[in-house]
Each structure stands twice: as C-alpha cells, then as structure tokens.
C-alpha cells in the first residue's frame, strides 16, 4: 500500500519553532517483514530567516515505494493480483506494487511586535494514482509578557484525488466495469492548544483537535470477500468526523538529560478509538554527541464496518489499518556535531503491530546551520 500524505499541520507545528537558519538532508529506509512494503525516501529541508520577523521553511521528499500489500484477490484470473469478481480460489496475500511519490510543502512564519506567530503553509503530494493539495494556517499568541504561556489555533484543508484504475466490482464507481474513474475527497483539521512553561526545566502542553472529511475514503487496492465466493473492492463510509485530545510534557533532568512524554486520545464516528503513549529520553554525552531512545505504545479499536468476511453489508473493509490492534515502537538515535554548524544524525526504529506487521525504519542525515 502507498504511503499517504500527512496533514501539513504536524509539519507546521514542528518546523519554525526556533530561529536558526539551516539546510537538512535526510534519508529514510523503511522495510516491512514478509517482503511487504519497502520505502526509500530522501528529503531536503531549508529553514531561512528574513530579518527578525519572517521565516521560510520548505521541504521536499521523494518516496520510492515498492513491495507488496496483503489483500483478498481472485487467484484464478492470473492476469492481475488485484483481480476481483466471482472466484473459486480466493486468497489473502501480498499483492505487488511499485510507486513513486513526490511531496513538498512551504511554510511562511510571520512574527509580530509582541512576537506572536502566524504560520501559513501550502503543500502537495503526487503519485501516479493519487494527488493531494493542502493549505494550512496557525496562529500562536503569547498570553503573558514573559512568554511562558501561549495559545495556538491551527487549521488545515486538504483536497485529494484518487484514481480507481479498474471499476469492476467496485460499489464506489459510477463508471462501467473495467473502466477507470477519478474520485475525490476533501477534509479539514482544527487544533487548539495551550502551552505552559512550568519552571526553568520543564514545559507542558494540552490540545484538542477535531477533523472532518468526506468523499471517496476507501482504497481501490483493498478488497473484501462477500458470501465466501466473490471478491469486491472495499467500501468505507463517505464521511468521517474525528476528535481527540493530546497532552505533552518535556523535562530537563539535570544539564544533559531530557525526557519527553506525550499521550493522545483519538475517536471517530467510524467506531475507532485509539490511545498513543510516546516517550523519549535524550542524553548529551558531551558537547558533540547526543544519544536517545524511546518507546511508543499504540492501541486502536476496530471500525464498525471491519470484518474478515461479509455478506450484504453496505460498508465493508478488511483493511488491517481499521482493525483492532496494538503496536510498539522501539527507538534509538544519535546525533554527532562535527562543529557548531554541522551535525549528523542516525536513527533506528522497530515497529511491531499485533496484526503481524513488523517494520524497521532507519533515518540518517546531515544538518548544516548557516
């Protein structure tokens, strides 16, 4: 399955938090078990201040995604492992694909006299069968003169196009069987957060978020089985509202040790609820070397329309992403500073889902401050 474009809000809220000018080159290598998905993704980021009041941040990524993703298919057709329709030999297994994705986004931060910040961003992502465009904005307002408290309101709007290459046995299609059809969906996300400096060594934040999307929200590559004899394309509902809350805390434990912890609760009207606990420890061994490690625990419940087999239900999906599962990520990282301006980073992660999916991903890169 393809990697879909991430909402720009996360990138808005990560970049531009400090005023250093830098260029960063980063590389991701992601591999799943059982010869499933493999991704190689180089990316580039530039962060530049223009005077005291403006910062421009731009990032670009090129994914090469290949491998296989499990779904049901008609094994008798022989022509394509995405084959649907009546079948005497239905299998659940890996279906090969190969995809390139290019994505980029640009964010402009404007600071005002009281140092409040307005961030405005635009982004895009393209693959052969998927196009995504996004616009976003957030405003951060300091509530006190010492800048210990701030409140932020952010929103993003995303518009996507998905190409269904083959409309056979696909209830979402209007086009005739075998033809292709362009589908669309769009949605928005809103976030309101409050950040508080607790003392000279710790800061906490709390936020609530809400989102809504509508249109074609299914995947043309995920299939289901009805009546144990026919393979169809999945059909998820054409609307989804979600909301949640997030808590975060960062603490310096002495001069060289930093602890991060966060909790997120999510719920949507597909029946999915999830909890995410993320922790990290960073240790500055000396002026040049920082080591880090952490654990992330995730659990979600299944969507109302998820099952392994169906009969006449309208909405139906066997996509593991909407099933109930939990997942653990074990993380390790290091950063080495060649000088005040040039640093190298390396990260290794093991992601283990109770669905049987296991993945390792490595990141490595250079960052140069100028």
């Amino acid at each position, binding site marked *: *399955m393809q990697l879909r474009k*991430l*909402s720009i*809000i*996360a*990138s808005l*809220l*990560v*970049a531009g*938090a400090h005023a250093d000018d830098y260029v*960063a080159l*980063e590389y991701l290598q*992601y591999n799943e078990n059982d010869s499933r998905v493999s991704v190689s993704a180089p990316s580039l*980021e530039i962060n530049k201040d223009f005077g005291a009041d403006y910062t421009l941040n731009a*990032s670009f*990524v090129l994914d090469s995604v290949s491998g296989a993703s499990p779904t049901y298919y008609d094994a008798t057709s022989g022509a394509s492992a995405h084959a649907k329709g009546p079948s005497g030999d239905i299998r659940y297994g890996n279906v090969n694909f190969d995809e390139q994705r290019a994505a980029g986004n640009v964010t402009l931060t404007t600071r005002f006299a009281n*140092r409040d*910040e307005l961030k405005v961003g635009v982004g895009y992502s393209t693959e052969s069968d998927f196009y995504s465009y996004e616009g976003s904005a957030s405003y951060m307002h*300091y509530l006190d003169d*010492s*800048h*210990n*408290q*701030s409140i932020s309101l952010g929103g993003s709007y995303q518009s996507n196009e998905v190409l269904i290459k083959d409309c056979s046995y696909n209830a979402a299609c209007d086009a005739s069987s075998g033809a292709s059809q362009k589908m669309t969906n769009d949605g928005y*996300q809103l*976030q309101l*957060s409050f*950040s*508080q400096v607790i*003392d*000279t060594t710790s*800061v906490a934040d709390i*936020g*609530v*978020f809400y989102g809504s999307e509508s249109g074609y929200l299914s995947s043309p590559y995920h299939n289901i089985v009805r009546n144990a004899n026919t393979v169809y394309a999945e059909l998820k509902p054409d609307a989804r509202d979600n909301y*949640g*809350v*997030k808590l*975060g*805390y960062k603490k*310096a434990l002495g001069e060289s040790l*930093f602890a991060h912890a966060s909790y*997120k609760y*999510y*719920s*949507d009207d597909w029946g999915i609820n*999830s909890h995410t606990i993320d922790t*990290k420890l*960073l240790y500055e061994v000396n002026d040049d070397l*920082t080591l880090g490690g952490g654990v992330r625990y*995730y659990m*979600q419940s299944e969507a109302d329309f998820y099952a392994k087999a169906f009969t006449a239900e309208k909405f139906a999906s066997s996509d593991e*992403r909407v099933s109930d599962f939990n997942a653990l990520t074990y993380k390790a*990282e290091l950063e080495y500073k060649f000088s005040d301006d040039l640093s190298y*980073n390396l990260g290794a992660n093991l*992601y283990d889902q109770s669905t049987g999916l296991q993945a390792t*991903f490595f*990141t490595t*890169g250079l*960052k140069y401050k100028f």
Partner: protein
Amino acid sequence: MRYITILAAALLFGGCVSEVQPWEKATLAKDGMKEGGANPLVKKYEEHIYYSKEATKGGGSIGAGGCGCN
C-alpha cells in the same frame, strides 16, 4: 475522557507553575527540549509512517512557551 482531560490540565498547570524570567530560559532553549528534536524531518517521517499504518489522524503537538526569545 473529558474528566481525564480536566484532571490532567489541573495537575499540569494548577499550583505547580513558577514564573520563569526571559533570561532564565537557557535550558528550555536547548535542542533536547524542542518538540521535533534537533531534526524536524525525522519527526515528519515518523508521523507519516504511523499515519500510513494506523487509523488515527490529527493531534500534532504545539509548544511555544519554551524559549520565547524570538
């Protein structure tokens, strides 16, 4: 869930906050205290992977009281 949030906010912010002066923010300005760490691109990769493999969306964290020295 609502009550957990209210309790968490009270614990986080009620009664345990001290006024930190602008010149006392050396520790808060360190890379180790930044939301995305020293490398925001890595954080983006991670979020992207989880978004692709899990059903949850939304909830990127906002933190701006750390340094306040812009």
